[in-house]
């Protein structure tokens, strides 16, 4: 009810101006289901950017309308949503998808329909290479895995680790990248175990980990399972084992769990480490939503900005938009967003910084030591 009201309210405020026409920008992410809280950041970031664009005259006099497409991070749902969008002649670019598995499911559909898409958050390594129509303003997992292994080694000094991964493209890709770098650094991987997203009982695997006696357990999964894993590990009295994860664990459900104290994660965006270009965004976001933006909000804000910039420059032609995005290929031409500069390599991937944040006294804080 509250959500409907706020939509109506936002709509009412926006229709105060007489718009000649609207440009629809669809945002595909999980807005319901287990990962709905990721989608919340995505939605907030996208709506804030659209509001700002419309307040300054829209795109060439046309109003931007964000269309939220819920795909639950489920590959099947993502394919349905992608087919719908690809067949809509009014749509010339998609912002999404959020999860790597959903992104990979939508990829062939967009490729066939020559639909450009910008994912704010899918980090699986293979995405960029598979389609010239997919772009992303987030780092890839080979970088994230490399970064995490180095952080665990240099800053934390972990020597023996185990990995608990979910059976999906994001988690497995990240695990492989992490293991590759860990091997180079001489970190010993004692073992790996898997789980699926509908699991609630992690004790059999955790019991095995407990017997391996690692310094730390790496959980390259998503927060809904991550929070259960740390709690069940504590109830098995797994002492002296540190827990860490990647950007999939960066969610408020973790800080609400007292067992997650001390957990650290990588994240593409930290409000207090972001440059001066983000100050206005953070302030506006806080004012509108009453909390700090997370990385999903920041990256989606930038992705919508990129999409709008492309439409503004070349109009609503799918092929021209793709060419425009592909031409942003050097630091000088970079899109200067709130989460850093975005420019694409030949695969449509980009290089971005990663940061580390940890849970201290039940709150997310930037880790004291960052890796530069």
């Amino acid at each position, binding site marked *: 009810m509250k959500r409907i009201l706020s939509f109506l309210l936002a709509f009412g405020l926006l229709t105060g101006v007489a718009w000649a026409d609207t440009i629809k920008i669809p945002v595909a992410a999980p807005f*319901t*289901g*287990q990962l*709905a*809280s990721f989608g919340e950041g995505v939605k907030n970031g996208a709506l804030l950017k659209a509001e700002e664009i419309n307040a300054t005259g829209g795109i060439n006099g046309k109003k931007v309308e964000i269309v939220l497409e819920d795909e639950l991070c489920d590959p099947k749902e993502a394919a349905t949503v992608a087919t719908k969008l690809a067949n809509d002649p009014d749509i010339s670019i998609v912002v999404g998808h959020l999860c790597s598995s959903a992104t990979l499911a939508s990829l062939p559909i967009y490729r066939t329909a020559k639909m450009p898409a910008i994912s704010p958050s899918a980090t699986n390594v293979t995405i960029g290479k598979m389609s010239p129509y997919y772009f992303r303003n987030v780092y890839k997992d080979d970088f994230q895995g490399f970064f995490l292994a180095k952080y665990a080694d240099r800053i934390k000094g972990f020597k023996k680790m185990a990995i608990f991964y979910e*059976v999906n493209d994001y988690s497995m890709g990240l695990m492989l990248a992490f293991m590759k770098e860990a091997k180079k650094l001489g970190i010993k991987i004692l073992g790996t*175990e*898997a*789980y*699926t997203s*509908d*699991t*609630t*009982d992690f*004790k*059999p*695997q955790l*019991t*095995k980990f*407990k*017997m391996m006696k690692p310094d730390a357990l790496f959980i390259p999964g998503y927060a*809904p399972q991550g*929070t*259960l894993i740390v*709690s*069940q590990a504590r*109830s*098995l*009295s797994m002492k002296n084992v540190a827990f860490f994860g990647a950007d999939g664990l960066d969610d408020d*459900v973790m800080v609400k*769990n*007292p067992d997650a104290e001390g957990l650290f994660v990588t994240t593409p965006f930290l409000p207090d480490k972001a440059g001066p270009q983000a100050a206005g965004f953070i302030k506006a976001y806080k004012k509108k939503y009453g909390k700090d933006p997370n990385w999903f909000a920041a990256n989606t804000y930038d992705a919508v900005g990129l999409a709008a910039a492309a439409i503004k420059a070349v109009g609503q032609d799918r092929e021209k938009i793709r060419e425009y995005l592909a031409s942003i290929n050097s630091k000088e031409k970079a899109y200067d967003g709130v989460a850093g500069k975005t420019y694409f390599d030949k695969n449509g991937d980009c290089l971005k910084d990663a940061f580390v944040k940890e849970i201290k006294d039940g709150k997310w804080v930037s880790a004291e030591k960052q890796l530069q």
Partner: protein
Amino acid sequence: MENLFEQSSLFLQQLVNGITLGGVYALIAVGYTMVYGVIQLINFAHGEIYMLGAFLAYTMVTFLGLPFFVAFLLTILICASFGIILDFVAYRPLRKAPRLAALITAIGMSIFLQNLARMIWGSQIKSYPREILPALFYRPALSFGEVSMTWLQIFILSITVVSMIILHLIIHKTKVGTAMRAISQDKVTSALMGIGVNRVISFTFAIGSAMGSMAGILVGLYYNAIFPTMGYIAGIKAFAAAVLGGIGSVPGAMLGGGVLGIAEVMGAGYISSEYRDGISYAVMIAVILFKPSGLIGRQMGEKV
């Protein structure tokens, strides 16, 4: 030598995990098997009763601020009456219809209740606040080397065992239990002997639902996660347990739950955690292939 010790404590710990999980499956499986026993209906909405139990208790402790044990008992009572209503609304009008009609209604009720819960509570995973149980519950009660068992695990196991004993006594020592057994053998003759068939069926639903909702709350506490589709997943597993033990047989459901729980945990622990559910279902299929009536089920001929 130390390695051997570690291996055996690993095994013991997995056994403890498996027995707890199996106990929960058994609690749910009993509901399937009892209803099947009296009206030969596979009540697919039973998993949803289990889910509703978890959510009702959650609502009582968080929104109404009731103490946990009060909420626990209240939820069981509410869910028991809910089971009766479910039978009254969805199954009783179809008592004389072909069995397939009631089965489809059961699937419909399952989908309906799942979506109702999604509308009321949302689809994100929720957790019971930890403060609702005394801190003692989270401490290890028994530890033997690396093996530990928390008070919560003991609590779950003892509730399971106690309710199974009570159930056994109800079925074998009371009048209504005798009536239940009579109906399961022949509904028409039982009615001719003056048994209020519908009343006994209602009672069966009440007992089954009470045990299902109890399992829901216990699982919610143990794994710290409740969500609208939890009933579907657990329901399928418990149904498998009931079939494994021999559907229609209450001791069979208990045994089936235990076997399935242990098979699942051992499969994940020793073979492959990626194929955990696959392994537990493979065990079930293997048993059914060699013993189609289940571990301790009766031969039922053409009665499927």
